[in-house]
């Protein structure tokens, strides 16, 4: 069973590597950020399967923390892309 979990962790690590290829090639910034999200998701999977392979339940906590904070980057990215002057008061920056 342990070998099976290691194989799963390995397979997930390969999908992370593929996501990294997408992050490298882009071409757009949004593609890169989505690839970063995919890397985050893959890493959560690797943490879970590695925890199962090692029989270490505390690794699930690491997966949980990664899950909670994975959305931070994409939220910050959306905030950074918001058009200027689109505030509620409609004030225009010039």
């Amino acid at each position, binding site marked *: 069973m342990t070998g099976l979990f290691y194989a799963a962790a390995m397979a997930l690590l390969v999908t*992370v590597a593929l996501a990294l290829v997408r*992050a490298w090639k882009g071409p757009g910034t949004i593609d890169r950020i989505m*690839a970063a999200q995919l890397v985050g998701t893959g890493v959560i999977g690797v943490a879970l399967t590695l925890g199962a392979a090692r029989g270490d339940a505390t*690794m699930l*906590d690491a997966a949980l923390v*990664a899950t909670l904070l*994975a959305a931070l980057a994409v939220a910050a990215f959306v*905030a950074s892309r*918001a058009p200027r002057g*689109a505030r509620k008061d409609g004030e225009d920056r010039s």
Partner: protein
Amino acid sequence: MSLVFDLVLCLMILGTAAASLLMRSALGGIVFFIAFGNLLGIAWLSLGAVNVALAEIAIGAGVTGILLILAHARLSAMGDPVECEPTSPWMRAAVAVICGGLIVLLSVAVLSISPTDRMGAQIATLMPALGIENPVTGVLLAFRAYDTLLETFVLLGALVAVWAIAPPGGWPQRPASLAIATPVSLTVIGTFSRVLLPASLVMAAYLVWTGSDLPGGAFQGGTVLAGGILVAALGGAIALPRADDMRLRSVLVLGPAMFLGIGLGGIALGRFLSYPVGLEKALIVAIEYALALSIGATLALLVAGKPVPPAAVQEGGD
């Protein structure tokens, strides 16, 4: 299988590190930096150092990522191109020498630790006296408490430094609002953050509590808390506080002050930072909770940045 896994992981870590340095676009570099933090977290897991993995994933991949993205956005808004310009060969050589020297120093330091080092066994024999079972928490809060105490004050000092660069008229106002300017995105992130903030509160409390016996602790819990606060601020669910808000300031100093107070109380028992017999665990857990609150608030405010004049807040504050 384990060896293959570790080798592939090492290659990927080196690859992401190289990519984040070589990437032409700054945001691309940030993406690889976040991926690098995540993979480093897995490496620590693979080494069995779950405490470090938690901190690396929370700080390296989570909060530093958001800090870099927001910094990039603010620099771009100021008209800074943020792209790398060609540097002179002398500069490159100097950087290579300094970084190479650091790597050599670190390698020597790591390799000088003997494989038959008895430190772990020594700590294991001392742990029962503390009533907690996580040796990392034991080292941080008891055996090397002095270091941890100073670190908490360094963090506070960093926030004071950020506040000190407030522009004229900015002090003691709020930091520039983080709320997303696009109404649709604000609704999505706002709804999401109202779910995430309570979940991150529970997770932070859990990490601190479990930290006395299993991997976790004040720094990990505080970072998760900071993450929840930041998403809530991005979603417009909470407003960032004024720098002179007394409740905010009490939260910021609560952890370090409590740690220092209990440490000074130890003088009455004979030594600075010693705990009274029988009360070790209660005091350590109390300090950890207070520290987690302070660290969470401090990290969130460090990412939010300097206070700005109220007019600038409405414009996005750049």
